């Protein structure tokens, strides 16, 4: 036990002291702070988003009501659209449009809207920046309102402001969970995708760190010195928790800093830009606990596999080829996670999230979207634990033989044979 502890300590201390760790750990909270600051900054300096527009109304009678409906405001409270001119039934539409194009190109104008003479034809938005999709919603609504207003007028119903009549209700999505209800503003999807990426990346990263750590001991020939004092199993039993400690430290720093950021993001944003609103996202503690559990379960499962692969190879190149054995299931999770995201309670999702190699990514994903029945969570945990123990046992066997083997990379049948050695 003492030796295992010494190895855990060495793995932890040498890793935590590296520049890579310090930078990697600080960069996430710094990026968080930076992005909050950036959002606040952009909100504050969004004057440029004001769209200077001309409406060319070939049908007649629609320009005024369209302009009236384009009354949205941007984040800093200024109007989204400035209609500098409305041209009704121009004598020569082509010449007018040519003039407007010249004004856009000279920078005096951002866009012009063409209402066709025949209203069954599409409306046209001529703009320098067609990538700004945010304009399309309000413009479509405004044009449609103007149309409805015109059609009502044709039927003898006169209204000053059709938006009063045509205004619909917003649909608010409310998420129902065991613990109550919460208003949904897209945070569930955001958290779910964020979780998948976080779990995938960190399982892969820490697995590869473990593999490289084993490989380094082999390539530098430190292994031969080490095994004259410790059993290979002790080495493995020290290395994996040592790296896990590093992962835990990093996660703790990330979680605390991101938690603070999410809680105080609004306050911070207000510091940068008074009066702006920043969405506060609430991550349930129970989800964090599940994620932590599945991450560490998955970490032990995958790092044992990565360690065995590292032990079986003598060079980085060999390892790069064999590491697909362990990376495969993780990559598969990334390929199919959208399936689970769209239908978390489908049979396929349930089965996939119970399979121990996928559970560390897919089960937290399911939990974050729609809490599964407790038996499914429990079964997944039990299966993951049992598989992890089995994989560690098998990896230790490969490791015991692999660490002292140099030369040609073993083939798969050879690895299987190593498993059978007592």
């Amino acid at each position, binding site marked *: 036990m003492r030796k295992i502890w010494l190895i855990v300590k060495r793995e932890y201390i040498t890793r935590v002291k590296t520049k890579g760790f310090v930078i990697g750990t600080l960069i996430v909270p710094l990026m968080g702070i930076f992005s909050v600051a950036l959002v606040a900054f952009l909100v504050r300096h969004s004057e440029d988003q004001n769209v200077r527009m001309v409406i060319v109304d070939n049908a007649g009678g629609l320009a005024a009501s369209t302009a009236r409906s384009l009354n949205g405001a941007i984040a800093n409270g200024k109007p989204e659209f400035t209609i500098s001119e409305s041209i009704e039934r121009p004598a020569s539409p082509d010449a007018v449009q040519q003039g407007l194009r010249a004004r856009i190109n000279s920078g005096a104008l951002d866009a012009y809207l063409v209402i066709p003479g025949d209203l069954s034809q599409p409306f046209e938005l001529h703009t320098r920046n067609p990538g700004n999709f945010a304009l399309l919603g309000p413009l479509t609504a405004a044009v449609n309102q103007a149309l409805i207003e015109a059609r009502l007028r044709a039927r003898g119903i006169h209204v000053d402001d059709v938006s009063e009549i045509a205004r619909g209700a917003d649909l608010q999505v409310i998420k129902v969970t065991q613990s109550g209800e919460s208003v949904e503003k897209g945070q569930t999807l955001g958290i779910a995708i964020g979780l998948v990426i976080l779990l995938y990346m960190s399982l892969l990263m820490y697995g590869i760190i473990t593999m490289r750590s084993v490989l380094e001991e082999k390539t*530098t*020939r*430190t292994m*031969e010195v*080490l095994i*004259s004092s410790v059993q290979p199993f002790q080495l493995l039993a020290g290395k994996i928790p040592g790296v896990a400690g590093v992962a835990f430290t990093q996660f703790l720093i990330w979680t605390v800093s991101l938690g603070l950021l999410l809680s105080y993001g609004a306050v911070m944003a207000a510091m940068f830009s008074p009066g702006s609103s920043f969405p506060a996202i609430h991550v349930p503690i129970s989800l964090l606990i599940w994620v932590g559990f599945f991450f560490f379960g998955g970490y032990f499962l995958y790092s044992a596999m990565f360690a065995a692969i590292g032990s079986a190879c003598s060079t980085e190149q060999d390892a790069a080829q064999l590491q697909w054995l362990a990376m495969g299931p993780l990559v598969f999770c990334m390929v199919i996670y959208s399936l689970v995201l769209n239908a978390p309670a489908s049979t396929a999702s349930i089965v996939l999230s119970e399979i121990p190699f996928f559970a560390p990514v897919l089960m937290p994903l399911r939990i974050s979207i729609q809490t599964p029945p407790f038996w499914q969570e429990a079964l997944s945990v039990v299966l993951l634990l049992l598989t992890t123990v089995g994989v560690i046992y098998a990896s230790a066997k490969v490791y015991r033989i692999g660490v002292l083997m140099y030369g040609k990379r073993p083939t798969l049948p050879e690895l299987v044979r190593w498993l059978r050695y007592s």
Partner: protein
Amino acid sequence: MDAISIENVTKSYDAVTAVSGVNLQVREGAILGLLGPNGAGKTTTIRMVMNILVPDEGTIRVLGKPVSDKTREIIGYLPEERGLYPRMQVRSLIVFLGALRGLSEAEADRRALEWLERFELSEWADKKLVDLSKGMQQKVQFITAVIHRPPLVILDEPFSGLDPVNAATVKDIMLEMRSQGSTIVLSTHRMEQVEKMCDSICLINKGRNILDGELRAIKQSYGKNTVHIEFTGPDTFLSDPAIASINRFGSGVEAKLKPGADPQQILKAAIEVGAQINRFELLEPSLNDIFIEKTAHA
């Protein structure tokens, strides 16, 4: 009890037989020189004693116990292929390995500083291993092999890469360890080192041990069959039929006699041709000669 006992050990890699029927007993408290040309099977033998390789046939015992992962921990081991964590500080590296070998961390640290001082590495204690020269790394590795004062030490080419001053330090330490009761197995090509410090030798060639025993007894068995002659004047007497081979040096020659030849006969012949004899000495064969003879004729 023998420190190491190797009986009839054979080991093949695929088609190549690296070691074939080797027998060897290493007496406790002795320094054994494991000799042999390149590729003779020395390192394979050592790796089997370390239980890194498993023999195909035969048994190996260390301090009376069959080799296992446990016996490995009794042995202070300097492998042929050197290497330690390159990015660790020298001092913490030595402490880590010392602690793994059963010392308390405080004791390991105390000894680490002592050893670093002895090898004149004190100012490098806080540097990373990768910043040290090859020779310095070699010294650090030697320290890690002996820091826990193991009863049995196996050193594979301990002098390679060391300058004469450091080689002498390593030699002194080995003699010191023997006087404290440790058994040392030393694999090397440096005959003069073996000759100076080993109690017994084992000569391996092509996977077999062709000569082993107490160094003194081996040399005596060859008898004083070599004459060292320093002279001026004609050297025609060197073609005397009693001389098997000669080896010329700047100041004289070493003549190896045929079995049963009388050295007096050579002296007489030299005087007859008018050579001025400055020195005439009967010698035991050097280990180098024995090595060359044994391996060339095998």
